[in-house]
């Protein structure tokens, strides 16, 4: 409520009446790291995209030709891997903040491996679907499965690029003061993609 009031105060300022004053810009927003603001905005864009995919899925489901497909069981294991990756990445951030560099590296490596495992697991799910003759052309529910998993994986791979770069820094320049923040941004992104995966997995299971 306080934040809302302050936002309201900002856009109701009668700026023509207060010439001369230097208004205080040291509010919460202007002193936030720019990377974090940029990331949150990007998450808003990605949220918009996945919500629109979800709405399309829900609308398409209502048509007569929809076929219910049972998803490969490996998706449950993959979900567990991604949850663990998210947890280990957060532990890595916490260790970095606590200056415990060895633990930071260990948790970071675990997060990278678990995420790689998730992506390979998704690939395996594709192979199982294809082996069972469940092609994207057969019906829209199959097509949504391939599209959802692929687009989610592409976003995760984008995150892996940044996390790997942070990882290289962790090994070669672990004292870098910017490292905890960079890992922190990756962790936010990982938690976000975990939530997105929960949504997509739910949609796939329910259709």
């Amino acid at each position, binding site marked *: 409520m306080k934040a809302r009031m302050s936002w309201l105060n*900002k*856009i*109701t*300022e*009668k*700026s*023509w*009446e*207060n*010439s*001369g*004053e*230097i*208004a205080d*810009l*040291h509010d919460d*927003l*202007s*002193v*936030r*790291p*720019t990377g974090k*603001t*940029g990331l949150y*905005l*990007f998450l*808003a*864009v*990605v949220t*918009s*995209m996945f919500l*629109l*995919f979800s709405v*399309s899925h829900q*609308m*398409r489901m209502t*048509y*007569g*030709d*929809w076929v219910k497909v049972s998803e490969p069981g490996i998706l449950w294991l993959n979900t567990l891997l991604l949850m663990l990756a998210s947890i280990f990445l957060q532990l890595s951030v916490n260790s970095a903040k606590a200056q415990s560099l060895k633990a930071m590296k260990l948790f970071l490596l675990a997060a990278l491996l678990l995420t790689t495992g998730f992506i390979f697991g998704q690939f395996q799910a594709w192979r199982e679907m294809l082996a069972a003759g469940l092609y*994207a*052309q057969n*019906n*829209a529910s199959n*097509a949504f499965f391939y*599209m959802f998993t692929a*687009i989610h994986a592409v976003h995760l791979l984008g995150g892996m690029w940044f996390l790997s770069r942070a990882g290289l820094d962790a090994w070669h320049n672990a004292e870098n*003061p910017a490292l*905890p*923040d960079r890992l922190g941004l990756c962790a936010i992104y990982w938690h976000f993609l975990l939530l997105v995966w929960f949504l997509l997995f739910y949609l796939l299971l329910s259709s």
Partner: protein
Amino acid sequence: MAYVAIADRDHEQHLHDPQSFVAKYIWSQDHKVIAIQYSLTAISVGLVALVLSLAMRLQLGFPDTFSFITPDEYYQAITMHGMIMVVYLLTALLLGGFGNYLIPLMVGARDMVFPYMNMLSYWVYLLSVIVLCASFFIPGGPTGAGWTLYPPQSVLAGTPGIGGGIILMLVSLVLFIVAFTMGGLNYVTTVLQARCRGMTLMRLPLSVWGIFTATILGLLAFPALLVSGIMLLLDGVIGTSFFMPALLSMGADSGHDGGSPILFQHLFWFFGHPEVYIVALPAFGMVSDVISVHARKNIFGYRMMVWAILAIGIISFIVWAHHMYVSGMNPYFGFFFATTTLIIAIPTALKVYNWVLTLWKGDIHLTVPMLFVIGFIFTFINGGITGLFLGNVAVDVPLSDTYFVIGHFHMVMGVSPILVIYAAIYHWYPKITGRMLNDTLGKVHFWLTLFGTYAIYLPMHYLGILGLPRRYYAMGDTAFIPDSAHLMNQGISIAAGFVAIAQLIFIINMFYSLRAGKKAGSNPWKATTLEWQTPDTPAKHGNWGHDLPVVYRWAYDFSVPGASQDYIPQNMAPEDVPTSDASYHGEEGQHT
């Protein structure tokens, strides 16, 4: 870790100063160079779209005369003209061009907050343009599906460009959205976090408010185009059935089953309508600033103008289905969208009133930018009022898919934003190049463009009421179309030729004035906003020399009582304001 605002740690920042030609002008991370790269690319591809429109007009005005325009080519011209103008010209020029140039200068920043990503944004945009234009050179040519790319026809045999044109179009759009997202994150974060000391949100010039809000709309609306583009691509390339229903194509089963073309329309217009305001809001903002400077008067109702921009931005997300009244929707659904469409007219009309009230009793200078802005106000009112016709379901149904619609949207989102873009170029060219554009050439350009475009688009409303259908290659001997309609079509085509030639005057002026234009000085229009207060013109890398500016007032202190000059720059401290009246300082805060 405790953070300090960017404006307060200026001297800790190390601004990378490019030395080589390549780093300065090609792989540049400077927002001003990126802005010029964006603008020149957008204008170049816009000229391609202009030539395509001339080809269409030749065919429509003089059917059976030009054998080089076949029906297929006509549809390809329609499609590429529409998509280029809306996305690759207007969006890119207003946000990538003006957004890039103006935001850091107007908010008092040294650059965008993510300069490397800003550079990437331009190069991915250029790639998207190259991919799009590549479709002119492949067998089968570009897609002729119409700029809305509606399935099923956009990916079915019989539509021009089915071989590769539609794929290149969709890939190009995906690339454009990636580029826009990288730029957009920059614009919004820069406005939020890189403002100089004293620059509160309500001291921002309205141009920044317009660009800022339009960028947020773009960031949230372009994903809808991305989603529909990806799904359409999959339908076309690998044969999925997201949008494609079961149908026979050329007598054979198409292999698709059960898809929903209406779903595509919803997604497309969920992007498409906010897109109108992605173009309009930056234009609204720039009109407000130009009008205030050239009428030597503070903008009327600044807070209302800001709130109207925000209100339009929000409401623009709940009006999209007014583009789909003839798609067979539930009448209550149509009623809802007609209502929201009429509601969005309220903040829009408020802005028009405020522009007119800013002119009221102002010290109006009929400079070229001011002429274009006044031309814009007339045109926007014209286009806006015909929008009220089309926003109502019962009136829209008979007018749908007629020339009335073409007249409406060209007035409101073709000519109107283009007039503002011209106003903005004539207004800011002196800051960008250090030279004034030639005044006489500018005035000739204005009058020919204004009357010429009216000669094109006003008659189209009559043709539309007559029932003339749009998207037809030739009208033939249709019984209800009288000879006078054919004559009018010829007249429109001739006017289009004149308008196209008039644009050459502008291009000649741009190049001529670059060398021979009058030296502008740092603030030729005696404007208050920060971009006119830079130590160098054109502003150098880093914009502000040694110290960032400090802002003491809002952006519209014109003709302040007691002050001896009719403008007070935003960064002028109260004690430095030259006065003719000793009471000025004592009356601080009362002078409006």
